């Protein structure tokens, strides 16, 4: 299950390996950067969704895009310190706004960040089935987008209805085939498991239908009942229908099934919820786990720049108004202490199945990992939640199931600063 040879390489590590043939020549003094663009619009809010997104009319969309483009331009000064490696347009439903907006946003990015060979970047857009047309897809392709992430969630129309999705499985398949025809050769499909009343068999049926389409990447999340969603009202703790959610045991069986089935069809689990065919791991998402810097642009988007994390203004009108001054958009800026960075290195890095490198820990923090986490590592090894494979430390199967427990162990006490 866990590869002896780490299959995935986070982009920040790639840049340390000179001999990598996939590497582009670039200025070694510049740091790698991922860019996230947030499109906070959708046709209809899904019943389980707590992301910053809502339906809006065309004027608002237009104003938003122009504010967003202003924000992009405001990074002129920052741009020359970085090599952009990935761009991810997420939402909401980015495919719900006019494709020309996407094109102009991307061309602004290419211009400001001096991106010359866009085909060497991983450029992803999230799309909702039912919002894609041939024209749209062609336009994306022309704009440089080379990866599609389609939120299917379930192949069962009843379940789709329950989730509040706007599409049927058939509409999805039509969109998917269209994307293939247009030439997209790197497609992710999102599915959600552990839906109310879902049986193991129902989920497997869904998953098999997805596998049959042969996408390059599959994300399988189990449903989280988020605060403030319609689902919370219905299925939240203590509510009348909460018993309709599958039990912990069913949920775990589903997880195990997913791994077995997907492995059979050539997908490797490379992160807690992500599976890919070799070479098609999401570089953008991996950059989060490897703590590569990233710039979130748009409403509420999160960034890691230098040793600071922050997110943008959450209020749409405020965002549109104050975007001329991007500094004023920043909220909850948090300078990460040395301890914070070590904690993140662990709890983000361990999300990946190949785990974290002890050598790399030492390089980054100039401290031996044993010095900081010695006793915790021993305890977790004893509990068989982690294991060591030469230089790497990774979660065991059990550790993956209990990852929050493991991660929280790596939070350091403030006193030990």
């Amino acid at each position, binding site marked *: 299950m866990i590869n002896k040879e780490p299959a995935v390489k986070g982009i920040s590590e790639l840049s340390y390996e000179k001999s990598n043939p996939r590497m582009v020549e670039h200025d070694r003094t510049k740091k790698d950067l991922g860019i996230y663009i947030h499109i906070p619009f959708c046709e209809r809010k899904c019943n389980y969704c707590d992301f910053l997104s809502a339906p809006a009319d065309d004027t608002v969309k237009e104003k938003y895009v122009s504010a967003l483009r202003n924000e992009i331009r405001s990074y002129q000064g920052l741009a020359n310190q970085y090599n952009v490696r990935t761009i991810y347009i997420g939402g909401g439903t980015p495919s719900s706004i006019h494709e020309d907006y996407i094109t102009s946003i991307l061309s602004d990015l290419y211009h400001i960040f001096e991106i010359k060979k866009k085909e060497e970047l991983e450029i992803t857009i999230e799309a909702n089935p039912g919002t894609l047309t041939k024209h749209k897809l062609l336009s994306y392709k022309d704009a440089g987008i080379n990866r599609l992430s389609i939120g299917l969630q379930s192949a069962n129309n009843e379940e789709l209805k329950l989730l509040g999705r706007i599409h049927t499985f058939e509409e999805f398949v039509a969109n998917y085939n269209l994307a293939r025809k247009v030439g997209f050769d790197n497609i992710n499909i999102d599915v959600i498991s552990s839906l109310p009343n879902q049986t193991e068999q129902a989920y497997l049926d869904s998953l098999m239908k997805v596998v049959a389409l042969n996408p390059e990447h599959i994300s399988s999340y189990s449903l989280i009942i988020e605060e403030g969603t319609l689902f919370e009202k219905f299925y939240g703790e203590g509510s009348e229908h909460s018993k309709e959610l599958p039990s912990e045991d069913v949920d775990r069986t589903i997880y195990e099934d997913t791994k077995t089935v997907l492995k059979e069809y050539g997908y490797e689990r490379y992160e807690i919820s992500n599976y890919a065919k070799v070479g098609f791991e999401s570089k953008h998402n991996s950059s989060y786990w490897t703590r590569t810097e990233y710039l*979130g642009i748009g409403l509420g988007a999160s960034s890691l720049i230098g040793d600071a*994390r922050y*997110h943008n203004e959450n209020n749409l009108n405020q965002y549109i108004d104050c975007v001329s001054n991007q500094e004023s958009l920043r909220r909850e800026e948090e300078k990460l202490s040395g301890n914070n960075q070590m904690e993140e290195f662990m709890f983000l890095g361990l999300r990946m199945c190949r785990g974290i490198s002890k050598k790399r820990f030492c390089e980054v923090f100039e401290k031996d990992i044993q010095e900081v986490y010695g006793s915790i590592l021993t305890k977790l090894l004893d509990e068989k939640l982690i294991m060591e494979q030469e230089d790497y430390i990774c979660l065991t199967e059990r550790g*993956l*199931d209990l990852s*929050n427990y493991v991660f929280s162990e790596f939070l350091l006490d403030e006193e030990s600063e």
Partner: protein
Amino acid sequence: MSIDQSKIRNFCIIAHIDHGKSTLADRIIEKTGLLTSREMQAQVLDNMELERERGITIKAQTVRIVYKANDGEEYIFNLIDTPGHVDFNYEVSRSLAACEGAVLIVDAAQGIEAQTLANCYLAIDHNLEIMPVINKIDLPSADPDRVINEIEDIIGIEAQDAPRISAKMGLNIEEVLEQIVSKIPAPKGDKNASLQALIFDSLYDSYKGVIIFCRVMEGTVKRGTPIQMMATKAKAEVVEVGIFGAGQFIPCDELSAGMVGYITASLKNVKDTRVGDTVTSSENPCKEPLPGYKKVNPMVYCGMYPADGAKYPDLRDALEKLQLNDAALQFEAETSIALGFGFRCGFLGLLHLEIIQERLEREYNLDIVTTAPGVIYKVYKTDNSVIELTNPSNLPDPSEIAYMEEPMVSAEIMVTTEFVGPIMQLCQERRGVYLGMEYMEETRALLKYDLPLNEIIYDFFDALKSRSKGYASFDYEMKGYERSELVKLDILINKEEVDALSFIVHAETAYERGRKMCEKLKDEIPRQLFEIPIQAAIGSKVIARETVKAMRKDVLAKCYGGDISRKRKLLEKQKEGKKRMRQVGNVEIPQKAFMSVLKLDDK
């Protein structure tokens, strides 16, 4: 300035819980014009936040008001509000002793309830003039005529001209005030005799020291009077005397026979000024103290531990401060293997315990873990010595025990006849000894039982309410000790005994209790990395077992679009939650598991 004794009326209001005592007090204060309606916060007398929230009066409160009666004269009313719970019965009796009359409130719909009777008899015992008032006549189910007949039949006092009021709506309050003037006698007493004043409450103020609430029976007290408490022997010189405004202390020149007021005398501890004690002059002492003083002793004990072990000194400070105002609260340091350093605390009853716990949490911002409350058992050892046991962990080895005794109470339960069956069954389950039943009228019965105190300190009151749909009421008094077959029940979590969960129980109910505790703990202890057996045992014999299955899933699948801060917060919360757990062996037990076993509600 001397006050005409004949214009003073000292009275209290007695009622069954929720029959409108505090509301009527509010209306009286409002009508007498000391406060404007705007200043009136609902229920001005209950001034502790906690009291207002629970709608009960914990400490006796007193207010002096001026009423201009229809005869054109101004009268001084001293309204002494009494605590409304059985735990504070003694305080009630001392408050009554400070009055000449009592306004008896009876709910026009519910009629006489157990507490109405208990308080009323208490008032009659103190020779108070009882003045009945029928409240809540605005309720659709009100039947004042029936209730008036009930008062005459059951209590045997004249009630035909009882004011029919609605304290809530402010209806007919004038009539109550006029009757207070005409029916309640003025105080007597010689202002030139030697000082004799009854302490009916005291509180500690950080500026003034102890403030004694008293009723002067004989003599006069003023600034400079050297005083002595006759029971505690504490001596001091009076710094200030005064009367009670609404929520404030108003200094005055002197307090003379018949008056109600306060004395400050730079006393540092309320232990010196016990409720019921007599204040006299140390230069010219009265011959005898006023009757009725007794030292109140705690009935119920439990361990109190800070949730965060580092807060132990804070807990000690807080308990010391609370004790300044609450002479009945006792505590001493103890340690538990599971809970660390804490205190064994003694209380008047379970409500007193809950109030102290809530005050520690609210006023002192402390998180408290309490262990199961217990009573004082007498352990007669084979070497003829006797131990008064307050902490189950200190029970000697069974081989050293000859026999044990437990405290008993005489209980009276008033219940509507349809619920007599279920209530008798409940008393039976709680090892009650049936003494008799009286029909108060066709629909109502008074059940008499002897019950072991340890059977009623947990959830008896809740069970009583739930099995009678709220219709039963309950009163008890201590009856002394009786020999009993008692055992110590231990709880083992993952094979390790958790001392804080041990308790003493009757041999017959041990199995049932043990089973329920295991079930409850199973729900409260979160799944952990391994399977955890929970066992109840008497000595080495396991009598019940449950298992907490190993945790299977604790995973956050979603990536929240790079919002790592959010993820971190979730992990921090999880870590924080773990900090709040108690480590017993290698099992983490949440604080609330220790508390949940206090309420093993059955039906």
